[in-house]
Every structure is written in structure tokens, then in C-alpha cells.
């Protein structure tokens, strides 16, 4: 086909309007969320002592950490869905949860320890954590990848990793209400490991499905 002919057909299709990537990503996450919540409600559920736990600042801190991962990850993934976008200037947003965790670990270290450090770090739920966060992430990861497919990322693996961070951050927010380990040391260790796993899956799948 002659290029002028192709151009003619593209011009004829100009009236077609695609929704914005942010709109598609939001819809896809909203569709996926009930599945993750179903997994949460079926296998995990909110911890029994949630009312008293809410008076513990380290319990609340878990949500601050997980949401400070999920929300910036959504923002950065939308930024990277533009082909000319660079991570530079935006990547620092992804350090927010790291900073929050550092502050939390510091404040816990200054308090009289309720438990020895190794017990706080190992907790009682490390294995559950490593299974629960990835399991609840999967529907959200599929949704995030579907949404980002609507974009045009120049680095599909990186965009896929961001989809992994989005889904892990949201799944960890659910999981935080189940887990009875509130020490920032536990969160920094096991949540991070689970998130790294989901991020790696996202990068791997993204490198295939996010090419446009």
C-alpha cells in the first residue's frame, strides 16, 4: 500500500476519540478490585482486634506506607504511558514509602521495645504475608496492565514494573488490615519482599504485553 493511501485512511479515522489512559486504568482497577477484595474476604479478613489496633500508630502507619506506594506508582505509571516521558524527575515519588518506613523504624527504635528486634522483624505472619500480597495483587496487576496497554510506554518492562508496584501497594493496603504484625521492621522486610516479587512479575509480563 502506498503511504499516501494509508495516510488518507488515518485522516478519515481522525474523528475517532480514544479515552485517556488514566480513565482506562481507573476503570480496569475498579473492575479488578472486587476480585482482590473477594480473595481478602475469603481467605484473610480484617484482624479481630482491629478496634484496639487502630489506636496503635504503627498500625495506621502501615496504611500510610502502602498507600504512599500505590498512589505515586499510579501517578508515575500514567506519566510513563506517554512515549516521550522519562523517569527522571518523577522517580523520587517512588521513594516516599521508603522515607516513611525509615521514619517509622526510627521512631520505633526510640521507644522502649515491647519485643526484641528479631521478633518484631520476623513477626508471626511472614509466610502469610508473602502469599497474601502477591495473591491479592494478581487481579489488580492484570487490571493495571490492561489499563496501561492503552498507553504507549517507551520502556514496557519499566511500565510493567510500575503496574506491579500499583497492584502490590493496593493489595498490601488490604493485607495490612489483616496482619497483626505492626512493627515497621516487619513491614520493611516482608511487605518489601512480596512487593518485589509482584514487581518482577509485572516487569516480565509488561515487557511482552505493553509493547505497542
Amino acid at each position, binding site marked *: *500500500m*502506498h*503511504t*499516501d*493511501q*494509508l*495516510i*488518507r*485512511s*488515518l*485522516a*478519515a*479515522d*481522525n*474523528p*475517532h*476519540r*480514544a*479515552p*485517556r*489512559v488514566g480513565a482506562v486504568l481507573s476503570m480496569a482497577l475498579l473492575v479488578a478490585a472486587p476480585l482482590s477484595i473477594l480473595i481478602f474476604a475469603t481467605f484473610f479478613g480484617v484482624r479481630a482486634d482491629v478496634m484496639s489496633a487502630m489506636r496503635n500508630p504503627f498500625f495506621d502507619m502501615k496504611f500510610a506506607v502502602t498507600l504512599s506506594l500505590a498512589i505515586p506508582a499510579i501517578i508515575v505509571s500514567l506519566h510513563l*504511558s*506517554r*512515549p*516521550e516521558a522519562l523517569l527522571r524527575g518523577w522517580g523520587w515519588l517512588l521513594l516516599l514509602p521508603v522515607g516513611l518506613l525509615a521514619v517509622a523504624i526510627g521512631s520505633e527504635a526510640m521507644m522502649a521495645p515491647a519485643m526484641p528486634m528479631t521478633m518484631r522483624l520476623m513477626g508471626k505472619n511472614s509466610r502469610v504475608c508473602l502469599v497474601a500480597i502477591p495473591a491479592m495483587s494478581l487481579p489488580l496487576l492484570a487490571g493495571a496492565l490492561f489499563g496501561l496497554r492503552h*498507553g*504507549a510506554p*517507551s520502556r514496557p518492562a519499566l511500565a510493567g514494573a510500575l503496574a506491579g508496584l500499583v497492584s502490590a501497594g493496593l493489595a498490601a493496603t488490604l493485607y495490612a488490615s489483616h496482619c497483626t504484625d505492626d512493627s515497621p521492621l516487619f513491614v520493611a522486610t516482608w511487605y518489601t519482599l512480596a512487593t518485589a516479587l509482584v514487581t518482577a512479575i509485572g516487569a516480565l509480563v509488561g515487557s511482552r504485553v505493553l*509493547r*505497542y
Partner: protein
Amino acid sequence: MRGREDEWTGLMRSARAGDDAAYHRLLKAVAPVLRAAARRGLARAGQPPDQAEDIVQEILLAVHLKRHTWDSEAPFAPWLFAIGRNKLIDALRRRGKRVFVNIDDFAETLPGEAAQETASAGEVAAQLGTLPQRQRDVLQSIAVEAASIKDTAAKLSMSEGAVRVALHRGLAALTGKLRDH
């Protein structure tokens, strides 16, 4: 260069506002620049330049289907060249070549180079044959026979809406096939 790129941005804004003719002019204006860059990329990879047109058409399709990711407050050229680079890298990889795409391949088109003739390419035409009948007929009518949406609808006994849907789906399907084949 500046003036040319500002003009592109203006045309793309008009296109988004619904001016199909401006969009047509824009695509005609960028095609020679993309062609020159594709030839340079192929030359660097030790490939014959006659494949450049396939790459140009693939870039144009991607530009078309991803144009909603362009921010109308941003200049158009960096967005266009980013897509061009990505598609050129993909195309060279598919040909099993080690890829050296110069970051300036797209940005630094010499004015003389841009005056090359347009050409025909085989890949889009070949994939066109694999589309469902309806989409193929509509694309054939609008692209090759230069018929309007209205005339195409009358000729194929379809509604104009159905022609528009078939046209868009056809273009999207072509893009997918070019990417995955």
C-alpha cells in the same frame, strides 16, 4: 526546525479539535522526516533502505492509534520522535539486527533529505489481506479508491457509523498484526 515543529504542534491541536484536513496535512508533513530517519537507521544496521517504507507506515499507524497519549500542552515533535524511535528499534530487532538507533536520527533531519518521494510498502498491504472482509473492503475503499466515508457507506450498503467502526477496527487490527507477525 523550530518553525516546522511549532507548525506540527498547531496542526495536531487543530486535528484534535476535529479538523481532519489539518490531520491529513500533518501526517503528510511528518512522513518524509520519518522516512529519512528510518533510512538512516536501516543504513546503520547494514540493512537495505527499501524497507524504510514499511517502518514509516508502522510508525504512522502507531502515531494514529496512540495520539490520545499526546498532551496538547506539550510540543508534538518529541512525542512523535519517541514513537518513531521505538518503532524503528522494534523493526530492526525483528530483523535480528543489533540495534544502534541514534537518539538524533529523528530530531536532526536535514531539510534536503525531507524532499524524498513517497513510496509503496508491502507489509501493510500483506496484512490487509488477513483482515475480515468488511474491514478490508472499507479500508480498500477509503485508502486505495480515495472514497469518502459517505460514498463508502453507500457503495457497501452500510451505515456511515458502521463504516467508521470498521475503519477504526481495521486500522487497529493492522497495527496489532504488524507488531506481532
